[in-house]
């Protein structure tokens, strides 16, 4: 990554008093505090300047600073809005922060700069109560409409058990169901077409087999054709971010498993990597390779679920039985290594939970041999199937520019022709030592996205094979006292070690105050964790940047004009899971 002196200079030249503070962070991303008046100007400039081209709004979130102790000279603020931008031409992130002091916090909306800011700002409004001036439709997004308070404010209770017994009498149930009633005028949608014909408003979900979970899409239909789509999310909101504020650094790991529940340990990785960055923890080589192997196995597992269900969405019954059978074979390996199937909770800060079991090589070698011929068979069955092709080629098309503007990452982005994979561009956990390719397509349609999923499985199996052949010897976990209790034999001779052991086991480790971000190329796109430590045993703010959230926001943009049957193909090809949208 290149330096950022030139960025600061350029901003200062254009907006002389915009930058109020330059912050140092553990992730070494340039972090600039900008005043509220200039924020839209600065972000617009960063996006459009030809030398900078921070063209993607990678993430937008907020921090409630009202209970914070260690600010390290950061400007006073009650709420801090955090923008994370990514420049594809510079291969660089930049973080822009704005401090808001008023008791009723308000900030200009950046929706004129990035269309994708729409949902992110709604989320910040919903979770923190910050008002965005000029936002086209600022309303709750994750919490139900009747909710009182803003959950991620420090004053809001975290536990359900703190909030009294849950009750749902008949009238309350009906009332809540009424709130869910869709009113087209609230969304600026007309009930009649130009010819004064009625549009039909169709609820797809939250209970619908085609939406792969509890996603609700409201379709405005003109006969068979989709005129507009309004996604309604939040049915799967599990408060994973608030949970981070009460779990110790170690005990939060199981919760990360359940964000994007198809990829198991791959979710642990960005979290533990961020903590390692913040605590200055070195991970031994063996642990790194074990992590990569498990991540790639889970990528295959997740793609297999996608393969079967996508084919089923398009009317094929057989593939789902075959791919799920292969997934079971994969789970035999995962179970032998981690002891669980879907949520192994197996990565640890500084390494992994335990060493690989004796005999793991045979299991993995068997699978490496078994799997590629199966993929060939599926190619014949699915990818070369005429009906499959007819239903996916030329359906749901978007280009690179739109994809970047709407925050699309992962396969969606690569299907448009941009060769961008974090495993290559900003290698983490030792991916630079592996030999693999990034599959890229050109048309950006459903078929291309499907093709890339299949190709990625081939590349993953290549990586797994390399892990198998070159597994380094050595420890599987760092000896850093933040991560691993000291050896029992030392504690018997040395009171310091004993204290260390006791504190780490009872309270959990204390990470130095600071903040960091780490993201990985997960199976659905880029998954990242932004953690703020206030020098205590829990995180002060945990922000999870998930790929499916912007992906679903983008769906209406390129799905209009098609029929519902095509929408099923589009939703399938986007490959999302609900926990990855709502967290």
């Amino acid at each position, binding site marked *: 990554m290149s330096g950022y002196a030139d960025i600061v200079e350029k901003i200062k030249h254009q907006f002389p008093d915009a930058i109020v503070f330059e912050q140092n962070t553990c992730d070494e991303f340039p972090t600039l505090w900008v005043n509220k008046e200039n924020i839209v100007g600065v972000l617009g400039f960063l996006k459009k300047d030809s030398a900078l081209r921070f063209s993607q709004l990678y993430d937008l979130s907020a921090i409630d600073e009202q209970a914070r102790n260690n600010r390290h000279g950061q400007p006073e603020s009650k709420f801090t809005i955090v923008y994370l931008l990514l420049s594809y031409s510079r291969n660089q992130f930049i973080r822009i922060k704005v401090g808001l002091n008023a008791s009723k916090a308000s900030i200009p909306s950046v929706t004129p700069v990035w269309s994708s800011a729409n949902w992110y700002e709604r989320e910040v409004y919903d979770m923190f109560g910050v008002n965005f001036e000029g936002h086209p439709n600022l309303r709750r997004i994750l919490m139900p409409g009747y909710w009182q308070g803003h959950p991620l404010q420090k004053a809001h209770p975290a536990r359900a058990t703190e909030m009294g017994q849950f009750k749902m009498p008949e009238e309350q149930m009906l009332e809540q*169901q009424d709130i869910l009633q869709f009113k087209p005028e609230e969304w600026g949608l007309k009930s009649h077409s130009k010819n004064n014909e009625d549009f039909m408003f169709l609820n797809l979900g*939250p209970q619908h087999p085609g939406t792969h979970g509890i996603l609700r899409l409201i379709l405005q239909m003109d006969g068979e054709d989709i005129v507009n789509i309004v996604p309604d999310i939040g049915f799967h909101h*599990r408060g994973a971010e608030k949970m981070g504020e009460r779990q110790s650094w170690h005990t939060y790991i199981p919760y990360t498993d*359940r964000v994007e529940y198809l990829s198991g340990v791959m979710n642990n990785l960005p979290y533990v990597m961020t903590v390692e960055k913040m605590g200055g923890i070195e991970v031994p080589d063996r642990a790194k390779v074990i992590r990569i192997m498990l991540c790639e196995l889970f990528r295959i597992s997740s793609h297999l679920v996608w393969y079967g269900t996508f084919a089923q969405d398009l009317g094929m019954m057989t593939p789902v039985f075959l791919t799920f059978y292969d997934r079971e074979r994969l789970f035999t390996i995962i179970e032998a290594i981690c002891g669980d199937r879907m949520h192994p909770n197996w990565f640890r800060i500084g390494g992994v939970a335990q060493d690989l*079991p004796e005999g*793991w090589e045979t299991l993995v070698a068997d699978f490496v041999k078994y799997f590629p011929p199966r993929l060939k068979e599926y190619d014949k069955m699915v990818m070369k199937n005429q009906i499959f092709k007819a239903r996916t080629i030329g359906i749901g098309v978007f280009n690179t520019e739109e994809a970047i503007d709407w925050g699309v990452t992962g396969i969606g982005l690569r299907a448009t022709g941009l060769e961008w994979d974090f495993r290559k561009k900003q290698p983490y956990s030792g991916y630079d030592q592996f030999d693999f390719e990034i599959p890229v397509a050109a048309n950006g349609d459903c078929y291309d996205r499907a093709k890339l999923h299949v190709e990625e499985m081939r590349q993953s199996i290549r990586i797994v094979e390399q892990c198998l052949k070159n597994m380094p010897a050595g420890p599987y976990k760092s000896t850093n006292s933040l991560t691993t209790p000291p050896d029992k034999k030392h504690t018997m001779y040395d009171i310091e070690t004993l204290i260390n052991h006791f504190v780490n086991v009872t309270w959990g480790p204390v990470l130095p105050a600071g903040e960091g971000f780490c993201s990985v190329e997960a199976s659905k796109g880029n998954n990242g964790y932004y953690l703020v430590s206030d020098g205590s045993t829990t995180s002060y703010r945990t922000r999870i940047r998930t790929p499916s959230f912007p992906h679903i926001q983008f769906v209406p943009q390129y799905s209009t004009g098609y029929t519902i049957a095509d929408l099923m193909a589009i939703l399938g090809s986007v490959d999302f899971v609900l926990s990855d949208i709502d967290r």
Partner: protein
Amino acid sequence: MKWWTTRANDPINTMNGIGSMQEAVQQSVVLTTMDSMVNWGRKNSIWPFNFGLSCCYVEMATSITSKYDVSRFGAEVIRGTPREADMMIVAGTVFIKMAPIIRKLYEQMMAPRWVIAMGACASSGGMYDIYSVVQGVDKFMPVDVYVPGCPPRPDAFLEGIVMLRDKVGQEKRPLSWVIGPQGIIKPEMPSMKEEKRAERAKMTEIRPPDHI
């Protein structure tokens, strides 16, 4: 009329029997009570509702596929609408925003209907004691079988189905709305934790995770 039943693998000429009337009656007439017959039908064809909330749903779907094959227990006819289904599997976390919808879907199912709470979240809130999660689906609707796990393995889910089948087989529902006691008489569902304690206690050696 002469006919007899044969086994699938028997060569055709090993048919036995003489084809008498007595034999035919023995082979084709079953004497039972109406209750048992209806229950037998019910328990062998429980139609599940295709309904999933989160992670558990993936394991539930896995139980339908080849390795586990829920059709062995007669529960493979997945229905997309609650009006055609007998059994609702609450597979996953019960979110506050989703609660009125779950309730409505439950009410749309026609009696007799049964509910399995699959996984820790649906049973009790599980790991998620958090503002947006209802601490167990039994807070607003009845549950027949609880399956623990996070998520439960497909095997565990199948055991839940088998237990529900047994329960359905023992239920007494009045077939007349005029004569006899009204209302459903449900069998008692014991706590498996207690039932299996002795069996668990027998396990003295636990395989270490160091080899496969």
